Every structure is written in C-alpha cells, then in structure tokens.
C-alpha cells in the first residue's frame, strides 16, 4: 500500500513539474526578465525541492541506519544494498520521465530527461551523510538555478 502511495506521489509531482516546464517554453520566448519568469523559476524550484525531498528520504533509510545495518550485514553487503537502492531509484526516475514525457508532450524530450537525471545525480553526490546536517533546500536552490542557467545557455 505504501509503495502505491509513493508511486502516486511521484507521478503527481512529475506531472506538476512538467506542467511548469511546458509553460516555461512559452515564457522563455520573452526576451526580458519579467515577473512571470520569476514566478516560473520559483515554482520550479519548489517542485524540484519537493520531488527531490521525497527521494532523499529514501536514501536516508540506509544512511541513518548505517551503523546498525553494517553491524548486521557487514560493509560489503551494506554497499550492495545502497547501490541497489541508487540504481533502482534512478531506473524508476528515468522510466517515469520517459513515460510522462510521452503522455504530456507526446514526444520524448531527451534534453529535459538528461538534465533532470543529471540534476538528480549531482544531488545524490553532494548530499551530506548525516540527516541532521543536510541543507536540502539550499542545495536544491543552487543546483536548480545552475542547471536552469546551463539549460538556457546551451540547450535553448
């Protein structure tokens, strides 16, 4: 039951992000810095944050419990568990992106997909190992702004 809920949240969030990405294409035609553009970026950051927060929670299942899990399974098995989790989540992320691209915009936009996946990977790498010292919102803000900036410069 919990898994179905998680998948539902994932899909709803992804749809929301894409709704704003879709709107962004229109907004990006505006040459100058407008209020609409600011609102779009703000909302986009918020959704990215919520979306990532959900996934980050999944990772901390292992990171928080690290000592207890290693005591039981050993270091090698612990890393296997984490790797399985990382690959599994990235796999789901990639596939859900592909499907939703197709459903929402009727075509697969690889540039969006690659940027989203990269964004997600960067976050996993820069995340601190202890939950209480994490600054997800700040990291989200920074990475979102950087990826969007790069996207505007190199892709559009």
């Amino acid at each position, binding site marked *: 039951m919990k898994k179905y809920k998680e998948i539902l949240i994932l899909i709803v969030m992804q749809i929301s992000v894409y709704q704003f990405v879709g709107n962004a294409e229109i907004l990006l035609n505006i040459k100058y810095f407008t209020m609409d553009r600011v609102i779009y970026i703000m909302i986009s950051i918020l959704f990215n944050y919520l979306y990532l927060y959900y996934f980050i929670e999944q990772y*901390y*299942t292992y990171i*928080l*419990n690290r*000592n*207890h899990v*290693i*005591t*039981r399974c050993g270091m090698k098995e612990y890393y296997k568990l984490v790797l399985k989790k990382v690959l599994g989540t990235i796999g789901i992320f990639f596939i859900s992106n592909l499907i939703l691209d197709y459903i929402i915009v009727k075509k697969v936009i690889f540039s969006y997909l690659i940027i989203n996946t990269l964004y997600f990977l960067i976050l996993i790498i820069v995340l601190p190992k202890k939950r209480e010292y994490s600054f997800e919102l700040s990291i989200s803000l920074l990475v979102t702004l950087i990826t969007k900036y790069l996207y505007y410069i190199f892709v559009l």
Partner: protein
Amino acid sequence: MLELKNISKKFKNNLLYEDVNFEIRDGELIHLFGKNGSGKSTLFMIICDILEPTTGEISREENVKIGAVIGNSGFIENETILYNLKYLYNLKGTFDEEKVKSLCEMFSLDLYNKKKLSTYSVGMRQKVAIIQAIMEDQNLILFDEPTRGLDVDAIDVFFKLIKKLKKEGKTVVIASHDLYDKLDYDYHLLIKNERIVKSKKYEKV
C-alpha cells in the same frame, strides 16, 4: 569467539592505540574504559566492521552475531519504533513480534506507538537502541555508554538484563565511565598510553 591481532588505529596524525592484542571468549562480561577520546567507540566500530583498523586484523568465529549500541544511535527518524525494529530484524531474519513486544514492555515502551522516532527523548531512543542490540539473540553485545539518558527504573532494568544475558552465556562488553562497580565483571580493559591493558581490578584513569 573474537580475537584482535596487532590492531592499531590512527586518524591522520592522531594515534589512538597500537599493537592491540586480546581475545574475547564466550560468556564474558567485560568493562572497557578510558579517557574521553581514547577510542572506546572506535574500538567497537572496528569490531563491528564499521571502521577498518590501520593495521592488524580481527578473526571471529562463524557463529558470532554482534549487537551494538554505539554513540548516538541512528534510526529512521520519520518512522515508528515498530517500523525501525522490524526493518533491522528483517535484514537477517524474520521479525519476531512477540519477543520484541516483550522487550519493549520490559523498558516501558509501546511497540505500537504511532509517534515518529524523531519526537522521542534521548532516554527513549537509548532504550530502542538497547532493544535492537539484543532482539535477534546476538551472542556478542557491545554497549557504549548504555545508560546515557536512562531514568533510574530503566537503569535497574538494564542491570537485570545484563545479568540475564550473562546467565544465558552471552558475551557483553560495556564501555562506560560510571558503571565500573555496578556489575560483576570478569575483567576490565583499560585504554591508556596508546595501549589496551587487561586488568582484574578497576583503576582510576
């Protein structure tokens, strides 16, 4: 049961200990002590495979199952006690709900409490940590400052538990500053001058 051979641990330029050799046998109750920062928790982490020693090796018998309370125990904060204990139990076995429930009752904890673990006090978290260290019938149990945050009643329960574990033939190692005279230890291990010394009597550090 477990043997440490020529273990040394160094963090950058800080040498904690070197040439550590000792053996832990079945059914022993051991007290480990030393100054703050002398490496008691680090030694536990080395035994549990969480940290690697700089040199040396640890040989352990195949049937050794370790349970440990080390430092501030980490749990999945936004989940309940039941979720956390079930998750850990199921890593290497099948969750025995009745057994865990009775352990929780012993420490006046409600296994089915819907509250998230993040809302629990230090003492209550410590109780959960103690329970997870013994719930799977572990035969080598390491406690690092186990009475941290516990109230008087819970400390009594803890002492009874240790005596029961000893009767059952389990090996228990307790690292603490203040529990040196409360239990009938087989021997004390003192970390002093980068060495770990075994002694029958407790001596002030």
